[in-house]
């Protein structure tokens, strides 16, 4: 935990993005999390992704619940909208916000306690409603704020300084796939080369994107018996692919082995270029993905990368056939079009 604000000095060779911002302009206030917390690296990855995507800060809404992870929206995108909601209830608030204003980019920032325990129902329903959002869990397997009890995502047999976890883990990736998320990825806070392009791809995905980020708790869950420690994740990280996020199509100049590179064009024209590390892995097959994850989890591996992608997602606004403009921008004239219009509507039902 740091008392000092980060000095305003900047490296003179920082390159501004299209808006004239450097990555420093996407920072928030100084983190109050423990030194070495993986969550701070995720905040940095979010900052980097938004900087690289030239996102106007006022177009982003950060929503969170309760917990170490849910504190982090204060530490990035200081110029964006933020709402720190009730424990486990971020998905409902986010859903409401999204319905009211479909124009914003929604970042739901949660943790394993907030999403896999108290907010499990909220999490699943938010995903299945196909809200256009990026839902990130900063997953460390423990309740850090209450001194490190195992959370619902801790693996069975996982050891802390004082206890062993005997309960079966909840696999948030598996639940997201089951619930119909159209973009599912897992990454590791200690690997920004993997994480940043995944976040960029998720932001550009017009549907419910879920990213589970293993984020070691240095204070309570980084020991030898933990499956969410820096060492364990590094040793057992089975990355199925590497992702390049490309805003406009360019020529592939490097040469790759046949079958190792796959490109997916998204709805907005951006390209996801996947470098396959496991040739047998197919991120377009949802059932295959679920099986693959279960099999490798059995072997003690942490599968990371872009795990599932539906390039043609339909979000909740499409399903509800709402108007193109944000509902919160509709005025009295649009909302109360008068008795003649009402008669017309009623006539439709006669």
């Amino acid at each position, binding site marked *: *935990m*740091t008392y000092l604000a980060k*000095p305003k*000095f900047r490296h003179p060779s920082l390159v501004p993005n299209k808006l004239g911002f450097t990555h420093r302009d996407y920072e928030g206030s100084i983190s109050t999390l423990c030194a*070495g*917390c993986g969550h*701070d690296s995720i905040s*940095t990855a979010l900052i980097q992704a938004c900087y690289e995507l030239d996102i106007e800060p006022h177009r982003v809404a950060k929503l969170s619940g309760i917990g170490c992870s849910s504190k982090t929206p204060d530490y990035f995108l200081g110029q964006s909208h933020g709402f720190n909601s009730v424990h486990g209830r971020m998905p409902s608030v986010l859903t409401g916000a999204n319905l009211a204003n479909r124009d914003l980019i929604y970042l739901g920032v949660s943790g394993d306690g907030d999403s896999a325990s108290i907010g499990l129902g909220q999490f699943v329903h938010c995903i299945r409603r196909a809200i256009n959002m990026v839902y990130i869990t900063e997953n460390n397997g423990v309740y850090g704020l209450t001194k490190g009890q195992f959370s619902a995502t801790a693996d069975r047999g996982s050891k802390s300084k004082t206890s062993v976890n005997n309960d079966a883990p909840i696999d948030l990736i598996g639940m997201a796939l089951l619930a119909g998320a159209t973009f599912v990825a897992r990454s590791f806070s200690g690997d920004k080369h993997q994480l940043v392009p995944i976040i960029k791809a998720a932001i550009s995905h017009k549907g419910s994107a879920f990213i589970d980020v293993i984020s070691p708790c*240095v204070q309570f869950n980084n020991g030898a018996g933990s499956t969410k420690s820096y060492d364990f994740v590094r040793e057992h990280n089975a990355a199925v692919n*590497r992702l390049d996020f490309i805003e406009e199509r360019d020529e592939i100049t490097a040469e790759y082995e046949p079958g190792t590179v796959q490109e997916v064009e998204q709805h907005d024209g951006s390209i996801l270029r996947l470098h396959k590390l496991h040739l047998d892995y197919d991120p377009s097959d949802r059932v295959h993905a679920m099986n693959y994850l279960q099999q490798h989890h059995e072997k003690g591996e942490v599968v990371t990368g872009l795990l599932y992608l539906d390039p043609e997602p339909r979000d909740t606004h499409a399903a509800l056939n709402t108007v193109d403009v944000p509902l919160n921008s509709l005025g009295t004239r649009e909302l109360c079009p008068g008795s003649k219009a009402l008669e017309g509507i009623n006539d439709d039902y006669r």
Partner: protein
Amino acid sequence: MSIDMAEGRAGSPAGARPGVKPTDINNPDYFHKVVDCQWACPAHTPVPEYIRLIAAGRYSDAYMVNWHSNVFPGILGRTCDRPCEPACRRGRVEEQPVAICRLKRVAADNKDDIRGRLPKPATKKNGKRVALIGAGPASLTVARDLLPLGYHVVLYDQDPQAGGMMRTQIPKFRLPERVLDEEVDYILDLEPELKLGNRISSMKALLAENYDAIFVGCGAPRGRDLDIPGRKEAAANIHIGIDWLSSVSFGHTTKIGKRVIVLGGGNTAMDCCRTSRRLGGEKVDVVVRSGFEEMKASPWEKEDAMHEGIPIHNFLVPKAFTHAKGRLTGITFEKVRAEYDAKGKRSLMPSGEPDVHMECDDVLVAVGQENAFPWIEKDVGIEFDRWHMPVVSETTMGSSHPKIFFGGDSAFGPKNIIWAVAHGHDAAISIDRLCKGEPVDAPRPPLVNLASQKMGIHEWTYDNDVALDKRYKVPHLPNDVALKDVRAEVELGFDKALGYAETQRCLNCDVQTVFNRDLCIECDACVDICPLDCITFTENGPEAELRKRLTAPAKNTTQDLYVSDGLKTGRVMVKDEDLCLHCGLCAERCPTGAWDMQKFLLESAQAGHQCRK
């Protein structure tokens, strides 16, 4: 299954690659270079150390840190050429460096009586006799270092008072006499034998006096003349700059004509023109052959001159002194322009425009200084080079004669006071070793100390809260007062409050970021928090290539990369020292203490230890 961080990136296979060797932080030079100001200072004064003492209101302690290292803190705090300031890291992250030089003066101005802390005259003499030729900064430094060790030091000077060029060439409005006297007296109080007003005319005769060692610190005493038409005829009103300044200094000259032209673009020219303004010169002009930017004078000296209403005219080459009835009437100049050849070498070409004539009553010629050793016989065993300069070792200051040493301007031509001090320290070590029968050219390791500054989770012994803050201006005496008195000091110095504010601009570059590879868990916390993007964890590689792919490119190759040995993932930690603010946030955010902030204190070698306790 183990996945290396490099996996998947084209062209960078995991595993061992040729790369930069791990940094050896036990080499004193490594961290010394990070303290740019101290590294740039010829005397290697521990600058951040004394700036912190000033901030703490410990002016006497700050003064003593300076006195041990550079001997003349009060004098240098007003007159130093400040090689430390262009080097200052603050100047790389903000527009202007810390006003290091003027902070030194704050220590000198506000100290208590420190005489009790100075070394005492040696009670036990060692029987060795050393002659110092010239009583300027170089010789005085040798005297200070050797006298407490028991040497019998004989100080010769042609002038009646000690101080050398500090007394004769630096005007009193820049360096008040009381400041000079005070610091010269600290050395004279160590009781050297004084032979002032005594010009040495023969090295042979001096050698015959059987000194154990002789140190030549007689400066560069000859001002260059300008041999152009009219020089002889108008001689009465044409003066050599340094001789004229000396004459003013001793009170022999008190007046000058109303219209004065100063020829030359160095600091002597600036002192000449400003002195003229105070001795009756109403219209004083500086005329320089070269362009404004290439002038040798320090930028602040040019500014001060212009502030006193003295225009500087550039690209004018003096052609002839004009005169009538045996009296100077002015100077004719040829207009030139600068041309650069393919190698960037400049030459001044006639511009073809008509010549310019400027009227004046007096001319001061300040176009350079030369060394002159007419008193050193060719056959005494001192080798001279083709520029008639003695061949002198830059480390020992020894000449080809085993007992004769040189320092200050007489060693390598005109430099400045702080170089003279540095030479003096080196020569004193050599003389001490010579007299003890030790090898003179053996290494001279500095005293080095590296100690953690950690006091708590986020508490350090130093103030690490750095903020943007522009350099503070030193208040000046108003022109109408200053120009009336050649002895009225123009710069008033920072008061305590301004001085404190300026100390807060120091980045404490001596508090080093020390990395312990064995403790690092590669969590990236330091990378994420570093405000200047200095830290990267990556695969090793050849330095030139490595510099390009850091978090922020390391373009300043004069600044080192701090590279660790291989970490668990096979990567290395690379820190670009260039723009590090020494804010300590990497250490505060490090969960394992792999980063620590440790104060690096380096004191250059000096003869004996008496003067740096």
